[in-house]
């Protein structure tokens, strides 16, 4: 019996992963009610978990979910709306749903849902969480922990945003040409936020987080394929693929952290890298540079090492210069300083870091302290390097990276100390 439960749960999860966003997008685009669409689907999944262990997983689990979800939706519309207009609406929706025998026959409107979630009328901080919840079906608590916000706060924000979509009449369609560029940037930002969350589990221990990176790439592919003339959409996909290509190389077999400079290019996924390079080239022919293309170009300058054996640090410094002009981000400034150190020496790198040291956003940013420590160590300032490593170690939450930093710190004072 327990085995059947487990099997049913797995089957339901698989269907949810494949079809959840598609069903939410389809239902929400017609009712404008994202919450109601989500409710119908979670009801359907709850029914599946009750029914499948007893009767076995149906042959077409997605069709089963779809049938239950459409019944739930139609009932919900009947309950919430009255009058002839509502009746007509229900009939149309029911017919369209009925016509689709499987989820794959339902039009894929996830892109429209993403544009609704990233609409300028929606608070920027809730756009990526909203996409995570509506397209991928993440619950508020999981999203809250990823974004370091109290679950109740995140829950409230999501509820409010969905109410605004419905009440303000935010559309489920592509924006007009004039607004497209700006709106697309918001969508791409949100997708990249999702990717960054998945990326933060380099070892791929947590299936859900690893899936986040995969899902972000999936969303990136979707946007790039539907908007092939948008260079930034191609740039974002290129950036994510380059990063993903190095996933395996970021850890040793024992789970030890390997910084980019020490990674074995033979471990990089050359298929993904080739695809990333192709996308970046296509984007570059469109004559509109942007943040994601520049970041993808940085990746490209790193992976060129697999062919030449050398990283093009001068190019990377120039790219970070351009990125800093666009974003003014202190994170970019730290990366730029690292590139300066590689291209022109540790002293100049440290000077570049000192120039931004006053930024309060850096005081709790681990890579800033680690970069500082590396450069101080290279310049022989052991005491200051030790202090900076201590800060970096204290700020790091990934155990493998922490061990790596601890080894570096230990190496400052002669032979490595064996941990007790």
């Amino acid at each position, binding site marked *: 019996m327990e085995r059947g439960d487990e099997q049913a749960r797995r089957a339901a999860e698989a269907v949810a992963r494949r079809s959840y966003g598609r069903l939410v997008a389809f239902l929400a685009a017609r009712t404008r009610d994202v919450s109601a669409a989500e409710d119908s689907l979670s009801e359907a999944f709850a029914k599946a978990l009750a029914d499948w262990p007893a009767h076995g997983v149906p042959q077409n689990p997605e069709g089963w979910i779809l049938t239950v979800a459409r019944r739930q939706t139609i009932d919900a519309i009947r309950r919430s709306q009255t009058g002839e207009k509502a009746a007509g609406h229900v009939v149309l929706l029911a017919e369209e749903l009925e016509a689709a025998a499987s989820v794959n026959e339902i039009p894929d409107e996830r892109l429209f849902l993403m544009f609704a979630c990233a609409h300028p009328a929606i608070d920027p901080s809730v756009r990526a969480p909203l996409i995570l919840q509506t397209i991928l079906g993440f619950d508020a608590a999981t999203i809250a922990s990823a974004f370091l916000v109290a679950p109740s706060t995140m829950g409230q924000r999501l509820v409010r945003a969905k109410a605004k979509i419905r009440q303000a*009449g*935010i559309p489920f369609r592509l924006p007009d040409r004039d607004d497209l560029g700006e709106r697309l940037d918001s969508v791409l930002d949100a997708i990249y936020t999702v990717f960054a969350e998945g990326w933060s589990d380099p070892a791929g221990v947590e299936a859900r987080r690893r899936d986040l990176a995969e899902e972000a790439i999936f969303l990136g592919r979707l946007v790039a394929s539907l908007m092939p003339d948008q260079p930034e959409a191609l740039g974002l996909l290129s950036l994510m693929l380059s990063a993903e290509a190095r996933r395996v190389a970021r850890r040793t077999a024992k789970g030890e952290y390997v910084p980019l400079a020490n990674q074995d290019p033979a471990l990089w996924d050359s298929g993904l890298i080739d695809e990333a390079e192709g996308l970046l080239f296509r984007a570059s022919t469109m004559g509109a540079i942007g943040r994601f293309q520049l970041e993808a170009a940085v990746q490209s300058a790193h992976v060129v090492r697999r062919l030449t054996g050398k990283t093009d640090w001068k190019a990377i410094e120039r790219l970070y210069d351009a990125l800093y002009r666009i974003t003014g981000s202190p994170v970019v400034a730290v990366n730029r300083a690292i590139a300066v150190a590689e291209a022109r020496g540790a002293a100049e790198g440290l000077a570049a870091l000192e120039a931004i040291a006053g930024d309060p956003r850096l005081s709790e940013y681990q890579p800033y302290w680690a970069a500082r420590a590396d450069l101080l160590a290279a310049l022989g300032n052991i005491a200051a390097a030790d202090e900076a490593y201590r800060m970096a170690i204290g700020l790091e939450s990934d155990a493998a990276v922490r061990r790596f930093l601890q080894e570096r710190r230990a190496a400052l004072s002669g032979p490595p100390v064996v941990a007790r």
Partner: protein
Amino acid sequence: MKYLLLIYGQEAAMMAAPKEAATQMMAAYSAYTEAMKKAGVLAGGERLRPTSDATTVRGSNGKTQVLNGPYAETKEQLGGYYVVEAPDLDTALTWAKRCPGAQSGVIEVRPIWPT
């Protein structure tokens, strides 16, 4: 859906504008209103007399008080409004951007509660 476009601008500057500029503004509004009619989105709209002509009724603890002046003394004042019938927010925003008042003022777009 119905949306209310609230047009906020600097009333004093508008009143002090030279005649030519005022005429131009009127012509722009007239063209804008015409375009809305042609597009079939216009569901109402009026120009308001200045806030110096406003009188406010304010209630508290069940008692009402009649006060001289507008609801709020702000840098920009409500000068007029349109009601548009639009399929979604983006369409309403497109019309708000076209409003002559959007060039140097503020247009607030509010969905109207359906009845």
